């Protein structure tokens, strides 16, 4: 071995001068040290001795270093950091395979996760195969070791056929690194999510599995153990058919119930988060700051049930972002189970929805109670869970949509007037034909109900109506009002559906119409006029939801029924045909649709007169068809007629008149008659704001359309406030990241940029990139378009733009996307797909 120069006596490298030689010296030392530690420890002494023969200072230094090494223990081991698992398989659990630790011979790796690694191991005594879970050394701490000792024993006392037993816990040591571990029963089975993926597994079998899981959770709850991390990957479907729950109480043992401490592995985390209850995120409204109790497990059970029965989770987190996932869980209502699993019965839905209620006081009080209700369902007995009352749902609805609440009052008033008139009409004209007493009773009952509801408005409170209080108060009366009166109850549900429909909450509308339809089918028969009304209304709702096949089937049923019940030319029959025609363009049948509409129009003019509302709506729809076909002149003529007749029918202060005027303004825009269009847009917007309120979607449509006109008139500064207004409405009623909101922001930014306000535009685009990333994904074409717009607005030095281009071309974007585009309008048009495009058409509909 060559001599090492300048060895200083205390063995420390010289740090003040001679860096190069000190460095070289240290490099040599490091090499020797590395060789030494790779030797078995009993041969290290010989290694040092040999070195001492040639260089005693060097050997002394190595000896000292090796002593520090031996004493280093957990020195500088990352405090918690080793739990960072940046990519699967980056750690090397296989390095453990074959080793024996504390009497467990490690056979193979079963799984790796953020918390650690699970091995299959062979225990020496008693001789058996076990699952050995190693906690990441980074998670190890004195506190953890203490908890292991304190609580491990309690966990080991959990004995239940549905629980994978914990045999022992221990604090292991591998080469000086502490490795806390758990020894668990080795369960041979597939994770629940894989079991559930089997399509031949029927609903009853799934419910039976859920019962078994809930019973296991109940057992643990009786022993005072909360699982805290229930999710399908923690449940194994054993070959005996009985699911086994793994890792009971382990989350707490590892102190991992705080979402933040689990935030070390994005993929794992989001997967886990979605089974966690709102209160686990420290949501104040959930009743505690991160305080977890048995009801949190009930929630997770409910989410698993939801997934098992519908194949999807109550909350989707398309962006995969942690923050977004948490926000959704904490803030949003889970959609009813049957929206995704229509074949699931109402009872089952009630059970699942009760289990995942955001308010834990409304959940089952124990896992046993949940299991019992599932069992009642299997046995065909009445279940304990009650659907949340409509009043309760509406209360929540109102809480969610504070922005639209002002609009509801107007809607209700319109509705109420219509009902009262309808009741009167029914009295007069249809008494004989309609088995009058029933119908009149019903409409009278519904009217009375609505009148009572409106009567709660305190006229002294001025113009603003607290619609939440109104609805809550009124709906508490539903059940007592209509006990044993399914026909009346159906009528109320139908009206609730209409309220929701008018509020554009089509999901809720569909729910109410479905209830109404079911009640009417049962009480009146499937061919009763009232049943068919619900069928048609439900069809319209489904069409709005984009469920065109369902809508078509429903329309077909309504048409056949009304034809034979009311006749070919009856107003209601024609309305169904009109609805069907409006649905046709979705299938690309434009010509066919228009022909059908014209046929309907002719019949309506004949039977209803050319000034009737239904006739005018059909006319408006024909105008839209012409417009779609770029026959702008023709569309304009029709719309003018339509507007004049609505004016004659309803007067100026009516939403329909304003909507018709908005259509006229739009057609003038199409024809390039910009200043006329400007005037009409102003009148339409004022009319809508007056009649529907400033927060209504149709008002937003008018503002947006007006803004687009002003952009084309190159009056950019004037256009901006209209987009701002439309955007504000949509941010309130659709949400800040909704695609329609994004489309409007895009137009606003574009108007700013075109008007030379580049800095503002850039800022807005910047914001939009964020939001678009959340909604569509960061590498989505739309997001990239916006990002490119931002770059353009910044008027960047070329290098920056090129960087961006380089970056985007690294993504999956074709080069064509990167070419600066002059076709701004085209780009904006493509920002939202056609079926989601902001309603540029006035919304005319009639049921």
């Amino acid at each position, binding site marked *: 071995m060559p001599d090492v120069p300048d060895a200083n006596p205390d063995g420390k490298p010289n740090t003040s001068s001679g860096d190069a030689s000190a460095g070289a010296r240290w*490099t040599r030392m490091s090499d020797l040290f590395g060789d030494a530690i790779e030797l078995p420890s009993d041969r290290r002494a010989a290694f040092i001795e040999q070195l001492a023969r040639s260089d005693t200072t060097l050997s002394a230094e190595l000896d000292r*270093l090796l002593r520090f090494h031996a004493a280093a223990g957990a020195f500088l081991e*990352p405090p918690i950091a080793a739990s960072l698992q940046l990519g699967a398989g980056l750690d090397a659990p296989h390095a453990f395979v074959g080793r024996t630790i504390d009497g467990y011979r490690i056979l193979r790796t079963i799984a790796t996760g953020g918390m650690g690694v699970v091995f299959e191991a062979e225990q020496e005594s008693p001789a058996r195969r076990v699952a050995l879970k190693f906690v990441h050394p980074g998670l190890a701490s004195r506190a953890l070791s203490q908890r292991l000792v304190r609580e491990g024993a309690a966990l080991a006392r959990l004995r239940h056929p549905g629980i994978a037993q914990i045999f022992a816990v221990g604090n292991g040591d591998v080469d000086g690194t502490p490795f806390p571990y758990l020894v668990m029963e080795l369960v041979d089975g597939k994770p629940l999510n894989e079991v559930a993926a089997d399509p031949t597994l029927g609903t009853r079998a799934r419910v039976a599995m859920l019962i078994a899981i809930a019973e296991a959770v109940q057992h643990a709850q009786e022993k005072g153990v909360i699982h805290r991390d229930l999710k399908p990957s923690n449940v194994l479907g054993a070959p005996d058919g009985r699911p086994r729950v793994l890792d009971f109480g382990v989350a707490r043992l590892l102190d991992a119930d705080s979402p*933040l401490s689990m935030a070390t592995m994005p993929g794992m985390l989001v997967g886990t988060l979605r089974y966690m209850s709102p209160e686990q995120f420290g949501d104040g409204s959930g009743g505690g700051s991160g305080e977890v109790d048995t009801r949190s497990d009930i929630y997770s059970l409910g989410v698993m049930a939801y997934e098992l029965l519908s194949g999807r989770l109550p909350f989707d987190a398309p962006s995969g*972002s942690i923050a977004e996932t948490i926000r959704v869980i904490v803030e949003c209502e889970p959609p009813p189970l049957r929206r995704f699993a229509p074949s699931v019965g109402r009872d089952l839905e009630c059970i699942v929805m009760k289990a995942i209620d955001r308010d834990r006081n409304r959940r089952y009080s124990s896992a046993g109670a949940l299991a019992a209700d599932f069992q009642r369902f299997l046995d065909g007995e009445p279940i304990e869970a009650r659907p949340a009352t409509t009043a309760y749902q509406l209360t929540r609805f109102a809480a969610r949509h504070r922005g639209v609440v002002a609009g509801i009052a107007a809607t209700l008033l319109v509705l109420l007037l219509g009902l009262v008139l309808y009741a009167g009409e029914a009295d007069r004209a249809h008494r004989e034909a309609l088995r009058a007493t029933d119908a009149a009773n019903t409409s009278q009952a519904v009217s009375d109900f609505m009148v009572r509801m409106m009567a709660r408005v305190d006229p002294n409170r001025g113009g603003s109506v607290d619609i939440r209080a109104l609805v809550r108060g009124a709906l508490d009366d539903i059940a007592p009002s209509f006990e044993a009166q399914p026909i009346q109850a159906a009528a109320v549900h139908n009206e609730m559906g209409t309220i929701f429909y008018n509020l554009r909450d089509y999901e809720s509308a569909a729910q109410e119409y479905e209830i109404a339809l079911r009640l009417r089918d049962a009480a009146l028969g499937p061919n009763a006029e009232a049943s068919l009304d619900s069928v048609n209304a439900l069809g319209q709702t489904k069409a709005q939801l984009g469920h065109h096949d369902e809508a078509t089937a429903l329309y077909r049923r309504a048409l056949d029924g009304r034809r034979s019940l009311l006749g070919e030319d009856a107003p209601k029959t024609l309305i169904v045909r009109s609805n069907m025609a409006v649905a046709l363009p979705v299938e690309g049948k434009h010509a066919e649709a228009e022909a059908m509409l014209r046929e309907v129009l002719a019949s309506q003019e004949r039977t209803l007169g050319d000034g009737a509302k239904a006739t005018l709506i059909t006319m408006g729809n024909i105008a839209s068809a012409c417009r779609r076909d770029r026959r702008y002149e023709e569309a304009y003529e029709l719309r003018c007629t339509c507007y004049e007749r609505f004016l004659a029918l309803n007067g100026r202060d009516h939403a329909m008149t304003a909507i018709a005027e908005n259509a006229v303004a739009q057609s003038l825009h199409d024809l390039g008659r910009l200043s006329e269009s400007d005037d009409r847009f102003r009148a339409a917007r004022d009319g809508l704001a007056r009649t529907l309120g400033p927060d209504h979607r149709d008002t937003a449509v008018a503002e947006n359309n007006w803004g687009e006109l002003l952009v084309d008139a190159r009056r950019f500064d004037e256009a901006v406030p209209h987009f701002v207004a439309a955007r504000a409405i949509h941010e309130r009623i659709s949400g800040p990241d909704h695609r329609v909101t994004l489309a409007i922001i895009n137009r606003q930014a574009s108007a700013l940029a075109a008007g030379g306000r580049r800095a503002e535009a850039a800022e807005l*685009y910047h914001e939009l990139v964020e939001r678009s990333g959340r909604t569509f994904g*960061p590498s989505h074409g739309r997001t990239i378009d916006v990002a490119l717009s931002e770059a353009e607005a910044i008027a960047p030095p070329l290098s920056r733009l090129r960087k961006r281009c380089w970056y985007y071309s690294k993504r999956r974007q074709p080069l064509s996307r990167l070419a600066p585009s002059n076709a701004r309008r085209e780009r904006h048009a493509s920002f939202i797909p056609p079926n989601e495009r902001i309603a540029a058409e006035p919304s005319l509909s009639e049921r």
Partner: protein
Amino acid sequence: MATHPADDVTILLAAATAGDDAAANRLLPLVYEELRGLAASYLRGESAGHTLPPTALVHGAYLKLVGQRETHWKDRGHFFAVAATAMRRILVNHVRDRRRLKRGGDRGREALDDIADRFEEGSIDLLALDAALDRLRHLSERQARVVELRFFAGLTPPQVAEVTGESERSVHRDWAAARAWLRGEIEGKDRDA
């Protein structure tokens, strides 16, 4: 002017991966600011009752700056390398301020205190470690890097190997040598003093 942190980070990361040291240096202030901001916001009571693991912080910064953009592990590794340096600077500055202010009298508990405490849990004196790391850097840049990655960003040895392009064995050896040397530096000095 509106810059675009996520893009900047992605581009800079890619450049750093390609061997552009200047890019890595320009990343540092971005990551630094992000970490400080996150530390402040997380601990400003938004997660009262939770102790924030520092790695969650680093990870939070990662998610915020790079997000779900598709990045290669190599890019991510570079991010963590930069984050390690940023974390080190933040903590060391903080501990230094803390000690100075302690002498001056009353001082409210700050956001970074919890994190610094977590790092000092194993009775490590961060300032002594910082100084020793600087000395180690003169001896072996590579070993100092390994320590930063292991200790401040929490990378596992295989991950460190990926980031530095060294073999796993070499990382193990560097880590062990650096650790023993640092322990000698810090504790040996304590004992001598």
